[in-house]
């Protein structure tokens, strides 16, 4: 390599990279040469420009799941280290106590016989805890480690991939990879004029919520991709109907009120409830080939969004069998839609048929002029009738304020809102922990199993983690 050594030295000097002897020599040269001084000043200025240009580059760090894996490794190592330290201390203590112990042995021999006899008489269900050394390291009760939860969660995902997705194992990160829920497409609103029909799967994976709770109990927020709002909402009991004499195989109910996390939007709750089993009977299948369709009224609804089921678009048409489910006695499902009524924050492109080059504005029927926001169509075959039954239930918006909504509505909305916060959904709007708490607290009335109080405890855990 050919280069101008003095110039290299001047650059190194300008960047503060010369050793003291060389530095002194170069400073002497600079004192003599204005040209050299100018060059040093130029290098420094250019270095500043290059550094500030490079400082404007931005990149994400390692992923959330990698952070978790790393954190669990750190925990595991610190536990192993303290374990080893404890063992060392114990060994030293033993060496110290051996001579004393030998002397004491003879003395103890007789008392041990007595002690054994007395033990026999004791209730053996109560273990005897002997804490001989109060200075010994305090043994903490075993609590699940983040690594164990991550491992169990990964095993679960591998065995039960989320609907319509494929989970695969990546040895590179030692973890399971599933689609990234942060994709904004998963959270998009659908224009009711262009896509008036919606549907939802009748199943959900309740285990995912158990993992969310385990992460929170461990003091970590769950990975955002591990949060399934539909599973959270449906992990709680609702008092769908107190009607004991339900004649229909499956009952559909709707309720519409304010959307707690976005002023102006409406929140619709759709519940399905299968006939309960008659006591003593085996659980019958009350209906087969159950399908649900929701048609939104573009006369009243500008756009809508199904809450939860974020990866559903992957399964659309991919596996229709998942949309046709048998339903057993006692089955219940709660589904939430966030709805943007027409005229609210209206954008020109959201108007029915507006801006379409190849279509005329949609022709609205008379029904579109009613107060119906949508119609739920339920199709199923009941066990005793081979013909498919079709049930239409129209949902009318009676402008119910949130304060006047049922406890079930408020509670489901609180759980959904909590889910949106945990997954940091782009559609979370003004969602906040205080709003989640306030809503759930208003719904504490119908809580025979203490589930809602427990929910408040879980929310408090998450809030604590977030605040720290």
């Amino acid at each position: 390599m050919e280069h101008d050594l003095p110039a290299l030295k001047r650059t190194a000097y300008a960047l503060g990279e010369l050793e003291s002897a060389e530095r002194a020599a170069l400073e002497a040269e600079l004192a003599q040469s204005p040209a050299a001084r100018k060059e040093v000043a130029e290098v420094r200025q250019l270095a500043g420009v290059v550094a500030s240009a490079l400082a404007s580059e931005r990149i994400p760090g390692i992923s959330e799941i990698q952070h978790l894996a790393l954190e669990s490794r750190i925990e595991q190592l610190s536990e192993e280290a303290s374990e080893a330290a404890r063992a060392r201390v114990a060994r030293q203590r033993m060496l110290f106590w051996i001579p004393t112990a030998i002397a004491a042995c003879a003395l103890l021999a007789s008392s041990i016989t007595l002690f054994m006899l007395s033990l026999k008489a004791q209730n053996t269900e109560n273990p005897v805890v002997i804490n001989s050394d109060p200075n010994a390291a305090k043994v903490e009760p075993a609590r699940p480690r983040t690594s164990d939860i991550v491992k169990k969660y990964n095993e679960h995902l591998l065995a039960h991939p989320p609907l319509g997705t494929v989970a695969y194992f990546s040895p590179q990160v030692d973890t399971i990879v599933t689609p990234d829920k942060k994709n904004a497409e998963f959270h998009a609103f659908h224009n009711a004029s262009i896509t008036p029909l919606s549907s939802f799967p009748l199943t959900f994976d309740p285990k995912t919520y158990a993992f969310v709770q385990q992460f929170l109990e461990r003091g970590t927020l769950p990975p955002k991709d591990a949060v399934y709002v539909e599973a959270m909402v449906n992990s709680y009991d609702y008092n769908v109907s107190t009607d004991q004499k339900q004649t229909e195989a499956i009952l559909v109910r709707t309720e519409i009120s304010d959307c707690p996390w976005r002023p102006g939007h409406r929140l619709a709750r759709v519940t399905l409830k299968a006939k309960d089993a008659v006591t003593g009977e085996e659980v019958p299948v009350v209906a087969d080939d159950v399908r649900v369709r929701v048609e939104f009224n573009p006369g009243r609804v500008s756009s809508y969004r199904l809450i939860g089921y974020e990866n559903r678009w992957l399964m659309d048409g991919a596996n229709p069998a998942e949309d046709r489910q048998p339903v057993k006695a006692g089955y219940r499902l709660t589904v939430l839609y966030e709805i943007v009524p027409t005229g609210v924050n209206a954008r020109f492109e959201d108007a029915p048929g507006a801006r379409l080059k190849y279509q005329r504005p949609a022709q609205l029927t008379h029904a579109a002029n009613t107060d119906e926001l949508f119609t739920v169509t339920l199709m199923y075959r009941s066990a005793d009738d081979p013909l498919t039954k079709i049930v239409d239930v129209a949902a009318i918006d009676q402008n119910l304020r949130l304060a006047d909504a049922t406890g079930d509505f408020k509670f489901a909305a609180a759980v959904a809102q909590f889910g949106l916060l945990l997954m940091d959904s782009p559609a979370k709007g003004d969602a906040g922990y205080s709003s989640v708490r306030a809503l759930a607290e208003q719904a504490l009335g119908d809580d025979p199993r203490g589930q809602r109080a427990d929910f408040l405890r879980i929310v408090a855990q998450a809030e604590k983690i977030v605040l720290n």
Partner: protein
Amino acid sequence: MAKPNPEVDAEWIRTVVAQFERPLVMYALRLIGDLERARDVVQDAFLKLCREPRSKIEPYLAEWLYTVCRNRSLDVCRKESRVVRLAEGQLGVKVDLDADPSSSMEQRETKALVLTMVGELPEKQQEAIRLKFQHGLSYRQISKVMELTTSYVGYLIHAGLKTIRERMVDEETREDIGPVARIPGPSRTPPLPPPPRGNVGSGR
């Protein structure tokens, strides 16, 4: 099973992760050209850090981390010959020229231009320039990371800066004749494309 590391210091490791996570991903990304693999490499480096005693690593922390990431990245590139180097725009690096609200339009244009120029330097010069000016490593630390002598590192940085300066002078000359050639107007002109490689000095 690996022996427990008696010196594992959880808090220290967390601090190191927080401080170096992004710079290391940025560095590995330039070597591998794939964000997900770069993240894997960085995670591996941190996992390796967990196994080392703090007292041994701490005095050489930065060069140790960069060296581990570099070796691991080169391994990945060797093993996966299928790794395709992505064009700059596809790397996933975002450029935030407005980070400093006090900077003028002209300063922002200069930054964009300098980034283009750095991106077009020969591989080794670019790596040394980035380690020095983006990651704040010294010649000595860079020489350890890149396994070169300090004087060669000094040469790489000097040559890289020289090329950038020459090309900036070229740009300024163009700007000087600008009023004749350019249509005056308030609209922001995009940075001019760099001149063809042939015009640039060989780095002497």
